[in-house]
């Protein structure tokens, strides 16, 4: 019995190490495939992602001081949906005056460019969409808490 146990343990040890080595290459394959499939499905090339990253850095820099190089923008799959995951290492939030200054500088630039009626309209639609989503979420929360209450009863 003891011998058999020992034998299994030794064998198991070797199997484990083998498996780990296998998994590393398997994991690279899986991760590479995920990225490529995201690109295929969304049509977002690495070039476009990089452009998006840069524009996001520019936009967010108005509000927070961050590690620009460490900003990560990835496409991730969650079930049927593709999500854009953004991870920003924030060094510190900017104070009000800094934000104001950045926004004003931005306004000036915009005015210098073309008329910005369209962009304002777009902003508005985005806002209303956001609000709707938030409201929906609240509803869902209420529903779920209600359900819990009922189950307690």
């Amino acid at each position, binding site marked *: 019995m003891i011998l058999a146990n020992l034998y299994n343990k030794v064998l198991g040890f070797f199997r484990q190490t083998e498996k780990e080595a296998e998994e590393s*290459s*398997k994991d*690279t*394959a899986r991760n*590479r495939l995920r*990225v*490529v499939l995201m*690109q*295929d499905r969304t*049509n977002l*090339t*690495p*070039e476009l992602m990089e452009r998006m990253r840069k524009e996001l850095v520019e936009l967010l820099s108005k509000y927070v001081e961050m590690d620009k190089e460490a900003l990560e923008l990835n496409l991730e799959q969650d079930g049927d949906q593709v999500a854009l995951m953004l991870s920003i290492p924030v060094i510190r939030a900017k104070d009000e005056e800094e934000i104001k200054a950045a926004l004003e500088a931005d306004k000036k630039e915009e005015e210098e460019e073309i008329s910005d009626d369209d962009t304002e309209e777009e902003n508005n639609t985005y806002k209303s969409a956001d609000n709707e989503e938030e409201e929906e979420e609240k509803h869902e929360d209420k529903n779920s808490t209600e359900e819990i209450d009922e189950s307690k009863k």
Partner: protein
Amino acid sequence: MSGRVIVITSGKGGVGKTTTNANIGTALAKAGKKVVMIDTDLGLRNLDLLLGLENRIVYTIVDVVEERCKLKQALVKDKKNPNLCLLAAAQTRDKTAVTEEQLKDICEKLKKDFDFILVDCPAGIEQGFQNAVAGASEAIVVTTPEMSAVRDADRIIGLLEAKEEIKSYKLLINRVRPNLIKSNDMMSVDDVVEILSADLIGIIPEDTGIITSTNKGEPIVNDEKSLAGKAYNNVARRIIGEDVPFLNLEEPQGVMAKIKKFFSGLKGGEK
């Protein structure tokens, strides 16, 4: 410089065209040749994955044809070897996005700057195949020792023979399993060569290392220990014109086999 344009084709899918392309291309570049690989599998590109270049593609062959960029801009340099480039296929278009004439034209232009232009052909015998073959003057037909693959290879050889531009074609037998051949459960290399009556340029053994090398996006010719890698290196040397004997695949490779061999060698010495 006037480069050689070689199309790598098979008829049947899944026999290892793209793997062969990636490995021969890498091996030729390692031998100091300037190599460009063209993926003509529009809509189903994979050569970029095998080379680990999938994140570096900015422009594709369709961008070149539709004049959104210059030909040179679309060539993706390999990570390790500056002699090696890839002209990627577009993933979002179909086979009609590039014509035979356009591919011919691209090959002609590339001939000036490269020693070898390797064209990765899509499976099948439709327009994709016709396009890939259009600019080539040589062909490598990839097959495996299986009935369906050999039958499709025969069909491809027939089509190649009818093409005036193709001056020569060679056979590459992939995924050979010496153990199965030994037990008469697989057609031997000789069987396949005899059936297809074609010149042989390579015999590649089945190698699990191919799976891990594909996972990592690194062609197996970079792995000095791999038998398949050696076999692919030999193919490249034969393409350059060297006379390289075929590997003896029957030689036992396992650790136990090596120990056995070592002891049998000792016995021999005692006599």
